[in-house]
């Protein structure tokens, strides 16, 4: 309790509070703008944090981090362009809702789900950070491989339309991520002799092209006259409590998935939101309507991706291992401020750890307010004349694509991905599986090959590890689930028939 009040003392200062608010607003803004994601946001503020005090610097970075993970959902809903890769699953149901004229309600669901997900993960962080960090060390390359294979099932679950097209899109995604350096041998793959290609195809420019630019191309290709006029509601509408009730279990499950994935370094919010969405497709109350503008999808994706924010701090703080590029930058800034993360942090600087907890709580609450107020502005984007809006999207998307690593090739990547995305969409291919493929490809390939080096080439040894084996079995069960359900329903029907007769 004493430490709690010490932490509170750290946070209840003007610079810290201002940082929380400014950071969160900035985070939501970079999240909303396609391409300018969490990494660009945190890189932008990094130089400022050097000259700030320890706590305000932490507050600013955590604000940007959490805000940006949430902000991506808004553009996913409003213009069918996930502002960040983490929000790719949100577009699946968010945009259809907006098309029905319910953007205000969709943002309401996303904001509530994000805030609850974020707060849930802070609670997890407070209760069990050292234990979870210790548990995450049970995950070697072999377990990562098993988790990656498990996550691949999402491809089947987020595909709309023909399953063959979904699987093909997923395979394209897996393949695209193999371009560039082979991390196990150092060889170059599919670079066609071009030096620039050795950097590989970066995720963010590809997503910017696939979603944002292809959306622009699609709209430009459609006739402007035949469009139905939809009465878009401007603003922010919270779903009533009665609508939340049947979805509580879904919410809790998605928060848990997000919080767990977050504790594993090297995975992240994009993976967790797809896994949660996939689980929703299997078991959510309205699973059959998923993909057509069903709040269940938004709730699952948004609570899971924001639940990563708090738990991603678990390995960062407790082990000194950053989980993703964003927490890596944060870790760098901690070190600049003379703070050495690791087990020692929890014994020697517990007051700072508590300050981080409190900052995260505050950030999530501020995020809710920023979302509610911001929605007034963002939903107005739907009323902006389309040519103007689309031009802005192109400019911002290209700035984002270039900004991630300052490589001019990324502009070409974004453009080609835009044309590719346009062709794929016209041909009825879903884009979400492609993103899943790109996100998981390197994790699956590298962990498999590292795992084989560790077992000296034995595949059998993969099944001797309990966690990996459980994940493989779970994968098999998930794949067989439609058959299991079918059999169950048939039995039930048969029983009912017997009863009736």
């Amino acid at each position, binding site marked *: 309790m004493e430490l709690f009040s010490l932490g509170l003392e750290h946070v209840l200062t003007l610079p810290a509070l201002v940082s929380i608010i400014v950071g969160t607003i900035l985070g939501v803004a970079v999240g909303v703008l396609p391409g300018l994601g969490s990494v660009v946001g945190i890189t932008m503020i990094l130089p400022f944090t050097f000259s700030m005090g320890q706590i305000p610097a932490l507050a600013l970075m955590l604000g940007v981090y959490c805000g940006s993970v949430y902000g991506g959902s808004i553009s996913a809903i409003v213009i069918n362009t996930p502002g960040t890769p983490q929000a790719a699953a949100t577009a699946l149901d968010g945009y259809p809702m907006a098309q029905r004229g319910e953007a205000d309600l969709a943002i309401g669901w996303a904001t509530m789900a994000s805030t609850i997900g974020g707060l849930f993960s802070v609670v997890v962080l407070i209760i069990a950070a050292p234990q979870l960090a210790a548990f995450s060390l049970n995950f070697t390359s072999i377990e990562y491989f098993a988790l990656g294979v498990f996550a691949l099932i999402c491809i089947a679950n987020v595909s709309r339309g023909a399953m063959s097209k979904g699987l093909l899109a997923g395979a394209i995604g897996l393949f695209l991520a193999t371009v560039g350096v082979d991390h196990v041998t150092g060889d170059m793959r599919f670079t066609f002799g071009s030096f620039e290609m*050795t950097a590989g195809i970066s995720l963010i420019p590809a997503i910017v092209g696939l979603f944002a630019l292809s959306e622009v191309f699609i709209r430009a290709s459609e006739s402007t006259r035949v469009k139905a006029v939809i009465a878009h509601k401007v603003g922010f509408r919270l779903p009533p409590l009665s609508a939340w009730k049947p979805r509580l279990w879904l919410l809790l499950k998605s928060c848990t998935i997000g919080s767990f994935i977050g504790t594993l*370094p090297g995975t992240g919010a994009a993976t967790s939101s797809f896994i949660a969405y996939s689980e929703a497709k299997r078991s959510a109350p309205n699973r059959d309507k998923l993909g057509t503008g069903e709040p269940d999808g938004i709730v699952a994706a948004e609570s899971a991706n924001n639940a990563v924010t708090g738990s991603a701090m678990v390995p960062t703080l407790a082990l000194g291992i950053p989980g993703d590029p964003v927490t890596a930058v944060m870790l760098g800034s901690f*070190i600049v401020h003379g703070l050495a993360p690791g087990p020692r942090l929890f014994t020697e600087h517990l007051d700072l750890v508590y300050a981080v907890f409190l900052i995260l709580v505050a950030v999530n609450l501020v995020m809710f307010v920023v979302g509610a107020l911001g929605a007034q502005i963002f939903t107005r984007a739907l009323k902006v004349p389309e040519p103007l809006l689309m031009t802005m999207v192109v400019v911002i998307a290209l700035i984002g694509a270039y900004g991630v690593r*300052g490589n001019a090739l990324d502009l070409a990547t974004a453009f080609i991905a835009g044309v590719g995305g346009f062709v794929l969409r016209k041909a009825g291919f879903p884009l979400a599986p492609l993103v899943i493929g790109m996100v998981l490809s390197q994790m699956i390939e590298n962990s498999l090959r590292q795992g084989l080096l560790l077992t000296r080439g034995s595949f059998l040894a993969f099944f001797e590890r309990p966690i990996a084996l459980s994940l493989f079995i779970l994968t098999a069960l998930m794949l067989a689930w439609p058959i299991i359900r079918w059999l169950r329903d048939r039995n039930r029907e048969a029983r009912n028939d017997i009863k009736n007769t």
Partner: protein
Amino acid sequence: MTIIKTVFAGIVGTLGLGTAALAQDFPAKPVTIIVPFSAGGGTDITTRTLAGPMAEALGGEIVVKNTDGAGGTIGTAETARAKPDGYTIGMMPVGPMTTQPHLRELPYSPDSFDYICQAYSAPSSLVVRQDSQFQTLEEMLAYAKENPGELNYGVQAVGSIPHVAGLGLASASGAEFTFIPYKGSAPTFKAMLDGSIDMFVAHISFLTQNSDQVRSLAMLTSERVSTAEDLPTAADQGVPMNFPIWGGIVAPKGIPAEAKAALEKACEEGMNSEAFQARMAELRMPIAFMGGDEFQAFVQSEFEKNDKLLTEAGIKK
């Protein structure tokens, strides 16, 4: 005639003034330092720490730009190709400068640059978990010789200095390791904590920050490190090795001599500043300034040394 003379004198005068003005006016606009790795990493933080005091000494602005990708080679190539006017320079670490060119065709070599200064040189260390069964390098090497290939040696990237150091250790001692490449230092550190690997090479600030989880088996330096006198070197334990993880400022070849001199002076003054020295002391990093000429000769010798090790190990392509 007088008119021509006047005009001529005018031209000469302007030209003369022009050169004089150039000497004083560098920099006339912000100088960009390219860091070939992402923001928040060791190279980036050192660069940003130095950028402030160096800009002050230069009397201008310095912007840090991160161009990440392909083991740092993308940003290094960008520096080599930049306009040689002194306004685009790069903080180039040992890897992209002296190991990557041996691994594949790159659009640059050490000859593509003018050398400004060495900005840091972190002693590297062979680290193990705190609870490792090995207390000394000799114990570990003896075990590795008895059980060839049983110990797992993690590397942050194929052909990186930690990898080259491991190859050097194997060739100098006759021990055999299984090298397991990860993608970057965070996953390598994780693999060590989860028990996948037995050891890896990190630089001294990593050791300082994580001293409750890892310890040094041997410093890979020719002499004991001034900021860590208590840690024995590999040489102390019978295997002479020296693998510093260094980096320095370079410019595309052919920058104006005035700009080069101004940058070199600013680099030295920046490194002598209190702010920079205090930060380095916290990380237990020795200050390692080298002037342009000395740095160039050093890079060349490192280039040849790593060439030899990579060729011997059969990794050179």
